């Protein structure tokens, strides 16, 4: 009679290659968030401006006399600017708890005790926010370009403004990267997602309030570099080949934006650790 081994059997199946674990975190996070009705409502609502713009394009194509409605390269720039409101709310709702909740539940130690590096953990979390934010910025902007082609029945507009494809991609990417990295860095600083949410809103809006006050007092917009959103506006104008709207040199705005990204990475590097060393 054969005697079968009754002891524990180790997993002998395939394993994902090292460095791919971030995708597991990203998928799990995206699925969990999509199960929330409020997230879905926010995402659907974020596409309302797309519908309005699509109607605008339809009218301009079918009723040539309404020249005012005809889309230009600036239309797409304005569209991305409008989406900033949704970027703000999605970032807060989706992003605030991404690391803070793990810190609250002491789950960081658990994550990092797996074959998973800190970079992969951050990349996984970043991918969650990235996915949602691209869904409300890059995707509708590119779809709008597609809508223009479909409604007009020709690729003439797109061919004439071919730079729009990289411009939309670059600006949406920058907008999303800045929001995601800043939010993740703030999320790593606290165990309370509410606190993180308000901190993010505070940083974005307070820097803008500072700029507005300095602008009103000085009568010029040299101080635009103190505002997170004004810097993005200034760089965005350059990306879309438009004249900058503020007196601050666009290069300074770009440097400040990159500085903020760098600062966020430094914060993440210091805060995302399995154990906190108290000195």
């Amino acid at each position: 009679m054969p005697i079968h081994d009754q002891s524990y059997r180790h997993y002998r199946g395939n394993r994902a290659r090292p460095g791919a674990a971030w995708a597991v975190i990203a998928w799990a996070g995206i699925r969990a968030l999509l199960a929330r009705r409020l997230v879905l409502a926010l995402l659907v609502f974020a596409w309302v401006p797309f519908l309005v713009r699509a109607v605008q394009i339809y009218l301009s194509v079918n009723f040539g006399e309404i020249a005012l409605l005809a889309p230009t390269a600036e239309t797409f720039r304005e569209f991305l600017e409008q989406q900033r409101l949704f970027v703000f709310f999605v970032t807060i709702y989706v992003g605030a708890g991404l690391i803070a909740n793990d810190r609250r539940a002491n789950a960081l130690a658990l994550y990092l005790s797996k074959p998973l590096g800190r970079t992969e953990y951050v990349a996984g979390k970043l991918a969650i926010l990235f996915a949602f934010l691209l869904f409300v910025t890059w995707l509708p902007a590119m779809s709008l370009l597609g809508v223009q082609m479909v409604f007009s029945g020709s690729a003439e507009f797109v061919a004439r403004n071919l730079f729009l494809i990289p411009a939309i991609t670059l600006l949406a990417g920058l907008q999303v990267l800045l929001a995601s990295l800043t939010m993740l860095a703030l999320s790593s600083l606290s165990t309370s997602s509410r606190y993180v949410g308000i901190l993010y809103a505070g940083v974005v809006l307070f820097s803008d309030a500072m700029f507005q006050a300095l602008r009103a007092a000085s009568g010029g917009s040299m101080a635009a570099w103190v505002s997170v959103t004004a810097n993005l506006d200034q760089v965005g104008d350059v990306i879309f080949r438009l004249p900058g709207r503020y007196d601050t040199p666009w290069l300074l705005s770009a440097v400040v934006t990159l500085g903020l990204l760098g600062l966020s990475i430094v914060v993440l590097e210091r805060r995302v650790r399995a154990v906190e060393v108290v000195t």
Partner: protein
Amino acid sequence: MPSFWAGAARVFDVSLGEMLWSRRTVFMALVTGGPVLVAFVVRVAFALDLPAFRVNDLVVSGPTIFGLMVWVFFLRFTVPVLGVFYGTALMADEVEDRTITYLFTRPIRRGAVLMGKYLAYLACTGFVVLPSVMLIYFLVVPSRGGSLAAGFPSLLIDLALLALGLAVYGAVFAFVGAWFRRPLLMGLVFIFGWEPAVVAVPGYLKQFSIAHYLQGLVPHAIPQDGVVSLLAAVFREVPSTASSLFWLAVIWAVAVLLAVRAVERREYVLDQ
């Protein structure tokens, strides 16, 4: 058993210290220290008579800058943000930290717990915001022909207005925090989505905002420049002082009553 107000006073005692020495103090220092920093920069620029601080070659007076800063920084930013931040957290902090049990198993009404924490919020934010405004006043107003003595009554009105703003926004968001499961997003949508939108749109919708009534009490002329030019247009529909005070009192009372009622009826299930 202690009365409602005696209970609230005891909760106030416990909560004030907790609020003052919490991590939020860092945030508060940021939102109230920033304007002071700007005021300092403006004062230095005025002293050096820098050309950047002239509008169309005209000098902007100290009192005008002060009025602008009170409006841009405090009424439109700091007061609503602190209202959302603290108001929505009055109960949520205790629930998240799982310390609410100690307060809810005492012989005081749950509403008194909320009231005590609300009063602590008022004291805490008042202690930080009002001195910051006074500091800005002393830094900015004496420049370019402004007089500290002449502007003093308007400073007092500003301080009272800010205290009123903190009270009303705090009460509304205390209710939001007590009633809704995700109050922060709702609060942010209200102050940065709803209020700016309805205040800018002509018609009666603006009556469903707090900012509209606070505008009616602003003692300064709102500057006619940049972002605030929109508000200048709004000012044409500004309510009277009496009407503003009346409606702010109504909003405050209704919000406080609803918040107390919500806390008394709601079950708080703590995370294990």
